[in-house]
Structure formats: C-alpha cells, structure tokens
C-alpha cells in the first residue's frame, strides 16, 4: 500500500503515491497512523508521558452554591453544587448506626452526584436516550471515590437545633443533656455536565467535582422550632465555605500495542482518537499528604489487554504526582 503522510512528503514526487491529508489518513487507518507517530510523539505533538494542561474557573454560576469549569485539552466539564435541606425526621437511619462519617453520608444520601453526557458533547452521546453504560460507569466510580476518599466531612452538613435556651428555662429536662441536636442536613446535589468530550472523561469530571465543592459556600442554617424547619441566613457575609478534606487527583492512561511494529506504549491522558485505538487502559487516583508529603494511592484500575510492567505503573504514578502538583497550584490560585 502506498499511502503516505502528505505532511511529511509534500512536494516530493506525488505522482507515484496517493497523497492524503493526515486527517483523512487518521480516519482510514487509525492504528497505523498512530503507530507511525509513536513511540516518541503522538499526533497531537505531545510525548506519551505528557498530560494535557488543565484550566480551571470557579464561581461562574449564579444559581449554584458552588461551581467550577475544568478544561483538560478538548474536554470541558461544568459542575454545579447546590445545597438543599433534608429533615432528620425524613430519614430512617438506625440509632445504633456504627459506620464512620463517609458511611453515614452515603446512607443518608447527603452527596448526590450525577453525570450528564448527552449534552451534545460528543457525537457518540446524543440526547434523547437515557444515560448509557459509559455515563453510569463514570457516575459509579465518582460515587465510590467520593465515599472512599472521605472528601467532605459529616459535621459540615449538619444543621443543629440550639437547645441551650430550652434547657436553661426548663430544669426538669434532665434526660437531654446535649446542648444541641441534629435536626436537618444539607444534601449537596452535584451535577456534572460535559460541554465537550475528548478523552479523560473521569479525570475532568473528578477535578470539576472537587473544585466545585471547594468553591461551595452554604448559608448558615438554624433549626426553627416554631416553623419546624431549617431557616437560613441570607446575608452573604454569613455564608460558610465548605471544607473539603482532600484533593486527590485522577490520571487515566491507555496502552497502545500493535503487533506489526512491536509497539507497546503507555499513553497518559489519552484523547478521543487515541482512546479509540487502544484496547487497554486504566486509571490511577492518588493524593499527596499535605503535611508529610507522602504519596497515597486511592484507586488503581486496569482493564482490557495483557500485562503492564510494574515499573511502567510506577512511572504512571510519578506522572500522576506531577499532575497533583499542577492541580494543587491551580486550586490554590497560583
């Protein structure tokens, strides 16, 4: 077959060969197109171990309590967080509940993430259908990571009734020694919308979720005995910032292997085209402890294909920790 890359061969004897622009070549023979570039660079000009730059904007949505737009290459995600009130009387958590805080949050349903892919972000996900397995899989991974990573503390979401007055005025109430009691909770609806999708969907969604939570400011609320409901303070200066306990970072990767050219390259943060050429891939979620500087693994995933060398995984981890530093600087506004 005499198909040549016209970009490299332009001007030299086109009479013998059928010359095609690179974009057409990529569509006709995606695997050989990618193989022709590797192992040094990718079609986009990045090296296989280079991730795309992340950009972050927060607080651009008026109606949400917190919001963020994260863009990684051509993938863009907007995330809005809105707090709503859940009355403790409407929940049915057992009194002898033994789980920890994150267990409690998930049982009560205080963090409700949702992912919407059918926003026209990619021709593969056009609206009119219920969320497919990609969207559901993405969502399930976000939920588990939110739970496992204990990103938001339980205390942050509680709304208390101040009983100190009641106790002072009524001496007979000896059986209620607690000064305050949880009467309601804030449920945070975390809605993640894809504006554009070109690879690394999970990384972008996860970062948008974290940045939106970090941006979230909830009104201070108190339980009102007379109206049997939680009342909030409308003054902006009394809004309280939600404390996010940690900011783990996600890095997805794909393995491109081709038998003809004996290639086996790990592509970090693969884009749409590269993902479509690879059967093997994975995801790594890691965090760096702010005080000790220790690298912590939260989640490792690998699917499809054959084997990946342990040394290769270590390289991916070191790239992820590089991304963590970039992400940390972005969040701190540096």
């Amino acid at each position, binding site marked *: 077959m005499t198909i040549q890359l016209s970009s490299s061969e332009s001007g030299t004897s086109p009479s013998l060969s059928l010359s095609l622009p690179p974009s057409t070549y990529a569509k006709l023979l995606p695997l050989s197109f990618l193989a022709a570039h590797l192992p040094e660079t990718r079609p986009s000009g990045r090296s296989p171990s280079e991730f795309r730059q992340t950009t972050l904007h927060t607080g651009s949505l008026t109606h949400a309590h917190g919001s963020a737009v994260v863009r990684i290459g051509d993938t863009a995600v907007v995330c809005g967080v809105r707090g709503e009130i859940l009355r403790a009387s409407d929940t049915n958590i057992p009194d002898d509940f033994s789980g920890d805080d994150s267990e409690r949050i998930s049982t009560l349903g205080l963090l409700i993430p949702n992912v919407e892919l059918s926003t026209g972000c990619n*021709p593969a996900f056009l609206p009119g259908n*219920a969320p497919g397995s990609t969207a559901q899989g993405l969502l399930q991974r976000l939920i588990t990571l939110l739970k496992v990573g204990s990103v938001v503390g339980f205390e942050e979401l509680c709304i208390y009734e101040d009983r100190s007055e009641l106790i002072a005025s009524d001496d007979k109430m000896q059986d209620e020694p607690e000064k305050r009691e949880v009467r309601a909770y804030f449920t945070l609806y975390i809605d993640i919308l894809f504006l554009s999708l070109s690879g690394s969907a999970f990384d972008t969604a996860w970062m948008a979720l974290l940045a939106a939570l970090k941006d979230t400011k909830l009104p201070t609320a108190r339980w009102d005995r007379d109206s049997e409901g939680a009342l909030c303070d409308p003054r902006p200066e009394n809004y309280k910032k939600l404390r996010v306990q940690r900011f783990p970072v996600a890095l997805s990767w794909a393995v491109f292997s081709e038998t003809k050219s004996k290639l086996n390259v790990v592509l970090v943060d693969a884009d749409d085209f590269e993902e479509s050429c690879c059967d093997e891939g994975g995801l790594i979620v890691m965090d760096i402890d702010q005080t000790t500087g220790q690298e912590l693994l939260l989640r490792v995933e690998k699917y499809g294909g054959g084997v990946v060398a342990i040394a290769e995984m270590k390289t991916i981890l070191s790239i992820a920790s590089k991304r963590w530093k970039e992400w940390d600087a972005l969040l701190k506004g540096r």
Partner: protein
Amino acid sequence: MTDRRRVNGPTGGTTPVVFDPELVKNFAASVSKPIRTRAARELRKIFLQTGLTPSASGSAYFEVEQHPSHSHGLARSSTLKITCTVHGPRPLPRSSSFTPNMLLTTTVKFAPFAASQRRGYIRDNAERDLAVHLETAIRGVIMNDRWPKSGLDVVITILEGEDDSWWDTGLSTMSSGGQTPFGMMSILSGCITAASTAIVDAGIDCVDIVTGGVAALVKKSELATGNSNLELVLDPCPSEHDEIVACCVVGYLKARDELTEVWMRGDVSLTPQVGVGGQSEVDSLINGAVQAASAYHAVIVSSIKK
C-alpha cells in the same frame, strides 16, 4: 417511577433552602432592586464564541453581559449562558425511511443548576416547547434539500437562565400563583442566535443568518410622564421591571427581511395607538424585536469571521 439510571436524592425528599423571613426583610432593605439603567432601545452586550466543542461539527457559546450595578455577592443577578452544539449532517440509521430532505432535530435542556429551583434531568414541557419554537425558527433557514437521507442534531444546554423576578420577592410571587415566565422569551432569543451561529460554524448551507430578538411592553414607572403608560423596551431583563404587559420574540433574517418565528405573549391591542407613532401595539412590539434581532446580526458575523 424513579429514574434508576441516575442517583436520586434521599427518599424522604429535600426542600430548597428557606431563608429566615426576618433577616430577609432587613437584608432586602439594604440592597436595592435592580433598575434598568440603559435606554429603552439599548441592548445588553452579548458574548459569542464558536468552536468550544471541537468534537462537534459546529458549536457556539452565548452569554449576555451582567448588569454592572448588581453583580455583588448573593444579590447578583443571573444572566443568560447557553452552549449549543451541532452534529451533522450525518447519515440516518438504516432502519429509518427515506427522506429527500435533511431531518432536523432540536433539543433544548436546562442544566439542573440553571434556575433558582433545581431542575430535573428528564426534559419537561417547557423545554420541549422551547425546542419546537427553535426548530421553526431555524428550519426555514437551512437548505435542507442539499442533504437527502441525512440528519442534523442541534443540541442546546442552558447553563444559566435569567431570574424571572428579583430574588427576595421570590416568596411573594410564588404565593400569588407565579408570574408569567417572560424569562423564557429571552432564553428563546438567545437559543436562536446561538443555534444559528453553531450551524454556520458547522458549515451547513443556509439562506441567511437567523437571529433572535426580544421586545417588551412594560408599565412605565410612576415618575415618568407621557400619553401612554406603556413603554416599549428592547431586550428586557424580567427582574428589572415591575410588570411586563407583553413580550415578543422573533427569529429574523436580516438580509432577506423575513421572519421565521414570532412568539408573543401577554395582552396587546391591535388598534393603532396615538402614543407610539400611529402603530398598533402589536406592530411596535414586532418592529422592536426585529430591531433587536438585526443588531445581533453583526455580532454573529464577526464571531464567525474570527
């Protein structure tokens, strides 16, 4: 039936945040209600950019400028933020029957965080209605006989819609049965402009560029004097006016001077009025909307040329 493919809230149900009425009263006194400071025929600036979604054939992002005087803290008013993607022309599935023209599908969806009340993921009637209006506005513009057996999808996501009322009066309007949602009119106008830009960005042949425009008849404030107590304003912002009497949105083709879509709401008279230059209220409303729409034409052209 519950949606089992998404995560629904707690089974007990949650309520939107309720503010302390006492504190709201004090707080409302400290911040002023937004007032329209621009002239009656002056439009807000719009921001329009193409190519934000590289994976789509064409895309556009549309945003209306925020009023500078009330852009602080909680009391800042919302603006309109719309993204639009166009997919196609693409082949229809084999199962569909032959069509000599390109099939146009429009979808309009509010993001859950687009309004002051959280919206669901399943499309409601208001969204379907907007999609039908949008389809009529752009169907006549596309030369759809050039692509037989193909389909075109226009997908709009409204990231942020305008408030229908000033936020702290939300409680009072809710109790009185709700105001007529005139905010939908400017949303439709924005959708038409965004969709038209994205269609041109996708390189689909059109007879002209269609633009959306809105005009409204509002009750004049008591200080103003004049023969009529109604005033025609272009590009109305619902939260800035006490009462909007009627509103009209058009899809307008500037080069051909044609309308593809007219949507009018409210009470308007057909008889010529003395106050507004001998025109009937209907005529002046439509003319106003056309005037607004033709102003956006230049913005689209410059954003496409970029």
